[in-house]
């Protein structure tokens, strides 16, 4: 795992945990050990307070209102957009589109980019470790357009086979869509290299950052990705809100995705003209509260410091990796040199579902199953994995509880 950030300070986790009301919860009478952060993260108190504040103080529809509340809400909504833009260092605010989540963001690009740029015989290049949300939208548009979906394979460590990428990157490829961090394997992909090579061939790249944005500093201007998608709920924000970043030049060229209020300039039955960015892609009343509060979640991260968050997570992740490695008959699924967030494993012949259930009974929340990456499970010929995924509020004693829980489950099941 990484050690470039060795200079950052490790956070005072006990203090941090006090910020998260849900972490104080008990399950079956015992303190909850929440290791399902890749599925969704818990929310700091600031976020809950901002939600309440919005609805109690200035809830109002945005953009078209002359009245005071509407102006306040609009202002806060646009400030949130600016916070997101600053967080990923976007060149323009209007390159930030608020969506429902990663899935919605990727569907927007697949549909809108695809409709404009894909022709029969063209190819879309994804990878074998993609989340279904970065597979199915491309399958759908490829089928519609007669284009072909190509897949960068992975090796036994759960890493991309970059030599195959080089071969697959022909001039038939119209877009590359890959994940920055794998949600089921924990692999951090060499996205810089992918983007550079794709750009050298004049091909745009979409990065699925659902599992990266909360762990790794993402500087979009340095990375130079053309599209970037992530979900609010995985970055300490609310459910129902997400982000699509797109380079102005692509977003300008792409047709709108959905039609409705706010995304138009002028509507007649004869002819409708579309609004400018970002509104062209934000049809209907947006998730005003969700967007504003996602901005507050980003404030929380900025305040805490992403470098410190990362360092803290690396520490607990390394500790977990080493302790898990010592469990007899435990094997890791995904053993990439670069890892972030999640550790997937299986123990002996124990079905992951059985393991998950017995851990749950010990008030340890992990996720089991295919994690919406069925092709990865097919590759490893397994029904699923047990996945422990970490945030900066997870502690070493929680890892100890996990290890003890696995041991107990193993005894019961073996």
């Amino acid at each position, binding site marked *: 795992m990484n050690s470039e950030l060795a200079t950052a300070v490790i956070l005072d986790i006990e203090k941090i945990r006090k910020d998260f009301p849900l972490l104080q919860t008990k399950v079956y009478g015992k303190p909850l050990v929440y290791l399902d952060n890749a599925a969704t993260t818990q929310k700091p108190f600031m976020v809950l307070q901002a939600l309440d504040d919005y609805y109690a103080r200035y809830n109002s529809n945005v953009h078209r209102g002359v009245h005071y509340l509407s102006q306040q809400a609009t202002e806060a909504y646009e400030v949130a957009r600016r916070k997101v833009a600053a967080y990923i260092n976007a060149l323009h605010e209007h390159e930030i589109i608020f969506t429902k989540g990663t899935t919605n963001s990727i569907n927007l690009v697949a549909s809108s980019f695809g409709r404009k740029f894909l022709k029969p015989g063209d190819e879309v290049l994804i990878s074998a470790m993609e989340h279904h949300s970065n597979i199915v939208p491309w399958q759908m548009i490829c089928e519609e357009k007669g284009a072909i979906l190509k897949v960068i394979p992975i090796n036994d460590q759960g890493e991309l086979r970059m030599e195959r990428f080089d071969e697959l990157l022909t001039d038939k490829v119209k877009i590359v869509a890959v994940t920055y961090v794998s949600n089921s394997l924990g692999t951090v992909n060499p996205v810089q290299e992918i983007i550079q090579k794709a750009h050298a061939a004049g091909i745009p790249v979409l990065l699925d950052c659902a599992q990266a944005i909360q762990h790794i500093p993402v500087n979009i201007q340095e990375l130079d990705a053309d599209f970037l998608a992530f979900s609010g709920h995985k970055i300490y924000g609310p459910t129902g809100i997400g982000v699509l970043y797109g380079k102005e030049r692509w977003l300008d060229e792409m047709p709108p995705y959905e039609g409705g209020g706010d995304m138009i300039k002028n509507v007649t039955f004869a002819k409708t003209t579309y609004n400018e960015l970002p509104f062209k892609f934000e049809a209907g009343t947006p998730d005003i509260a969700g967007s504003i509060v996602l901005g507050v979640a980003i404030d929380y991260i900025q305040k805490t410091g992403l470098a410190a968050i990362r360092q803290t997570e690396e520490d607990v992740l390394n500790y977990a990796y080493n302790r898990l490695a010592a469990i007899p008959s435990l094997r890791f699924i995904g053993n990439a040199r670069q890892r972030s967030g999640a550790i997937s494993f299986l123990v002996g012949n124990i*079905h992951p*579902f059985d393991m998950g259930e017995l851990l749950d009974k010990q008030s340890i929340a992990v996720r089991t199953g295919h994690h919406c990456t069925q092709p990865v499970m097919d590759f490893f010929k397994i029904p699923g994995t047990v996945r422990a995924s970490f945030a900066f509020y997870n502690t070493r004693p929680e890892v100890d509880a996990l290890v003890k829980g696995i041991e107990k489950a193993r005894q019961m*099941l073996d």
Partner: protein
Amino acid sequence: MTIKEQQDNIIDEFSFFDDWTEKYEYIIQMGKDLPLIDEQYKKDENLIRGCQSKVWLHADYRDGKLYFTADSDAVITKGLVSMMVRVLSGQTPKEIASAEIYFIDAIGLKSHLSLTRSNGLLSMLKQMKMYGMAMSGKM
């Protein structure tokens, strides 16, 4: 024994366990005890695919009654499957179709029959009732 009696028996058996460990050990034991299905029936058409674990279900109709055999790749599910078979196998299609299954809930494994759809048990129960309905000419 009726479906109700079978369920009440299981609930009785479980009432002796003091904690979840004993309860699960018992279920796991039931799961391990026997291969529940003849290998020839463990084929795709008998497979009920849940989100997490697989269940195979085979039904035989003899003398006005339905007989089930089943299996699962997850051992806890298999234990529950074996209880489900114990409760419903050998009953008339009509009784199966209209059976109210409450023992899973009563022994504290509600999630296996809830909307989380995280395993095949709920789908298996639905399939068993389908057989029941089909055979009692209700469909």
